[in-house]
């Protein structure tokens, strides 16, 4: 259900809630999952993003998001210049993600040092977004709730262990999704919670030897 400031907002740099604010948020999510401002980004724009994105500042909004700018940040307008100063190199291509893909979709590949990640997501209207894939795993991330992304060994009991730790921390889960590369390989878990994910939980999870990588993503206002 829509919240009050979905209706009386978002406060944003124009001109389009989907092609500008939503595009910015896809960049923000890529940056958050990478864990910092990327040094290099390759962005593929699909459908309407590629066709009408130019006049909507879609590219500038995505680059701004990669730099950590929120949808209401006036620096979005000059994000190409800001990227130069921040040492972010970027390139854009038109891509075809297929008939089934949402018309406002993008694939963002970002790199920082030895780290790299690839996300696919869509801007689904009114500035709301949805990530569908992270590094080839199926996910469900909206950014509107505090989110935890955990890459773990796909061994029996990991899901129970994680959910147990979440329960012990008193966290109420809104959504949870698990996808794995193959039996006994690796599984990516995305968890959206009703409240901010506690630092102690992140620290505890980080100590487990079956956890390979983890990101905590704050919800946007």
């Amino acid at each position: 259900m829509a919240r009050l400031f979905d209706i009386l907002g978002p406060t944003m740099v124009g001109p389009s809630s989907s092609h500008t604010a939503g595009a910015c948020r896809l960049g923000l999510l890529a940056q958050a999952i990478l864990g910092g401002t990327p040094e290099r980004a390759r962005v593929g724009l699909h459908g309407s993003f590629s066709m009408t994105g130019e006049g909507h500042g879609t590219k500038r909004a995505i680059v701004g998001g990669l730099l950590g700018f929120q949808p209401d940040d006036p620096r979005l307008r000059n994000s190409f210049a800001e990227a130069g100063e921040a040492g972010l190199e970027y390139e854009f291509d038109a891509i075809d993600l297929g008939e089934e893909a949402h018309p406002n979709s993008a694939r963002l590949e970002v790199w920082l040092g030895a780290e790299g990640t690839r996300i696919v997501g869509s801007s689904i209207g009114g500035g709301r977004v949805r990530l569908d894939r992270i590094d080839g795993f199926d996910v469900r991330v909206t950014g509107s709730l505090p989110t935890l992304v955990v890459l773990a060994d796909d061994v029996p009991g990991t899901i129970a262990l994680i959910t147990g730790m979440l329960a012990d921390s008193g966290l109420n889960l809104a959504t949870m999704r698990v996808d794995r590369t193959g039996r006994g390989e690796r599984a990516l878990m995305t968890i959206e919670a009703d409240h901010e994910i506690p630092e102690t939980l992140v620290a505890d999870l980080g100590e487990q030897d079956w956890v390979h990588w983890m990101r905590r993503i704050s919800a946007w206002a």
Partner: protein
Amino acid sequence: MFLSIAEWFEAAESRDSSLPVAVLRAEEKETGAGGDQIRERIRETLVVMRTAVDDGLGSSEESPTGLTGGRAKRLAEAGPRLLGADFSAMLSRAIATLEVNARMGLIVAAPTAGAAGVVPAVLFTLEGSRGWSPDELVDGMLVAGGVGGVIAHRASIAGAGGGCQAETGSAAAMAAAAVTYLEGGTPEQVGQAVAFTLQGMLGLICDPVAGLVEIPCAYRNATAGIQATAAAEMALAGLEFPIPADEVIDVMGEVGRKMDVRYRETALGGLAATPAGQEIARRAGMSELVQLQRRGATAGEGSARFGPS
């Protein structure tokens, strides 16, 4: 937020509170935020809205396409001719916000960027002549939010979901409800104002030229403000629209769902697909869009999937 206008009014009545307080309580419950915090954020939202109106009125700068920019200023400088001073100013204020939006200025999507001009134009114009206080304006925004929440739930507030009726129509209904409440209207009259607004905007298509949030959006925001004020005037005079607001909202949802995809923000039909609209798209470098528009014109429904929202 509420599932229906009726549920909202019921919640207010049963707790012996007002319409804005019922919205505030619902938002507190859903988000855990405090009432003061929510009211403060609305005040900040109003500041952004006001700044956008002022910036737009004060600037002759054109958007990158040249389709908008400076028109609000021109209209304001021309002054009222056929309309009274308030209505004339309301038109230019609505256009001002959309012009700021088109050149990547800061706006409040209320409920969307494409309809961002309506609520501020109506509220900031009438607050002067009606003497509403800043706190009352916050109450008005809460009422507007309550209406928008119901429409988002029962129908749609996105052009891609329900055409322009869902965007400027929703914004106008929000503004009409706010004005009616602030003028001392009863909850019933607030509901009437919503019904009066939407009945006059049913079926309005979303057909942005070159896929840009400029034409006709800027001018539709302007006339939507007039619709909203007219609806509030009728509701406050005690006129009754015999179909309840919730049922009018449901009709809007139904019309939106049945609307051809060309008229739902794909830029493949309506004004966008006219010869003049195609020429503007071509000049804006959107030759692929023009090809689709031409194909759509001969093939009818089908391939139209692309567009902003």
